[in-house]
């Protein structure tokens, strides 16, 4: 039912739609993602005011390689929706949704950290779980699970303060 409403409203913006295990999923083109999500948040028929989660899935054999996966939720109406936006190599990137939901700030930073996907327009895109000099993006499928990282030279926090400062 939600899917029909979405198809009627967004038409060609929806690249693919699927309903499985009681969950609705739509795929949107990268260029249209921000506009569609803004409409989903603001329009009274949807009111997806809660960005539950934002993550990515790596499909190395596929082009485009990454799916950025958004889980939206409407607190008032109680419906959920999964949105996928594909991002390809080289330099995978999608548009940031930090302007729509504040929770996107840290979630996009984590996604960037783990997958190396750049969120265009993010105000402060830097690593969050790993340290700055970490090489690579650990949740990519081609990152070996037992890879050792180079030793980071010790820095003096007094002489070199606020390495992360914004």
């Amino acid at each position, binding site marked *: 039912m939600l899917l029909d409403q979405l198809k009627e409203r967004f038409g060609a913006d929806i690249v693919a739609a699927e309903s*499985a*295990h*009681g*969950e609705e*999923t739509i795929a949107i083109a990268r260029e249209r993602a921000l506009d569609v999500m803004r409409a989903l948040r603001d329009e009274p028929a949807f009111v997806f*005011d*809660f*960005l*539950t*989660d934002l*993550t990515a*899935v*790596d499909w190395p054999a596929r082009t485009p390689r990454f799916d950025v*996966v958004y*889980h939206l939720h409407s*607190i008032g109406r*109680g419906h*959920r929706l*999964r949105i996928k936006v594909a991002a390809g190599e080289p330099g995978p990137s999608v548009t940031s949704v930090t302007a729509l*939901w*504040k*929770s996107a*700030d*840290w*979630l996009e930073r*984590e996604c960037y950290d*783990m997958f190396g996907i750049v969120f265009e327009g993010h105000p402060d895109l830097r*690593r*969050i*779980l*790993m*340290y700055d000099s970490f090489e690579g993006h*650990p*949740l990519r499928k081609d*990152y070996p*699970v037992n890879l050792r990282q180079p030793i980071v030279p010790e820095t003096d*926090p007094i002489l070199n*303060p*606020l390495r*992360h*400062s*914004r």
Partner: protein
Amino acid sequence: MALPARWSKNAEVTDSTEEVMEIQMGPSHPASHGTIKFNLKLDGERIIDCDIEVGYLHRGFEKMCEQGTWTQCFPYTDRLNYASPCINNVGFALAVERLLGVIAPERCQYARVIMSEVHRLADHLTCLGMAAGEVGAQSVMFYMMEAREFLYDLVEAVTGARLTVTWCRVGGITRDLPADLGARIALAFSHLDGILSDCDKLLSRNRVFIDRMADIGVMAAEEAISYGLSGPLLRASGVAYDVRKAHPYLVYDRFEFEVPTGSKGDNYDRFNVRFQEMYESRKIIEQAMRSLPEGPIALDDPRIVLPPKERVYSSIEGLMNHFKLIMEGIKVPAGEVYQAVEGSNGELGFYVVSDGSGRPYRVRVRPPCFLGMGALSRMLAGHMIADIVATFGMINMIGGECDR
């Protein structure tokens, strides 16, 4: 030497020193129970800006889950929010069961509800006890730790472990509830009631405590939703969103319980919401114990659940069954599912993707306290350094879950 004018007693609290001091608090600070670093910009003791660094406890949970079978993920989920491991176990089991299209037996669902609520009680006791201790109410901390011990005795009787329980399996649980569980719960609750009543008297109308908690870290409802807060943090802001009510899982729709909410969204509301929730959890456990059905505790499906040990050691079919499940894992059909459960800190979500092999393709956890930490710098802006500890305590950041 004369004191500067701003040190005089008549100085207004809003007067600015016009100087910004940068201080790094943490990562190992005795007042923050968890490894976390605050990069503070201060005007005197007032916080102008606060940049929070998390990740010190990152173990690569999501990466590790991709290496083994689905069942081998359970010990990792224990170590997410280690104050309430059963809830994590249940969330992951439910996600995989939905992908498989199976539903665990009735008795197992009741047992999962009971243990989830026991762990919610234990988690709230930990959170409130530690937070109270950090603002000076040491005795409350020890009382609550004592109450938690009685609950941990229950957990030990049911799961055989106190902390890392690894109690759930896909399609069931590892062992049945002990026959004398009712008596054990009654005993634990008789102790718990006394302690909660004492702590309520010590804190809820305590002037010092209220001064430290009220009007600190205020978050309006709309902003809390935008920051993705959930659980007690969101409910303290007045939004009655509880996954157990909004999207009931297991058998939660059969029990009567309230969803306590606050009005202002400050630390005192957060404290009260957690405190009231403990009484609701207690109600749920009692209702579940009264209507606990008899029956099997795991599915009878050789593709999913390990055969009993007698069959493994006495028949070739049982041995092969065991071998296939251990070596190849459960063959979960390709697909994806997002399963949310109400963790003690908020909406704990498991987004699992399977490619049809015996191993998870992707396991993503939606960690409630990670988003709480994302909102922390907004909550702290304009408050004093001492408020960091109180606000941080109310978010109840658990390193294992936040950093994964």
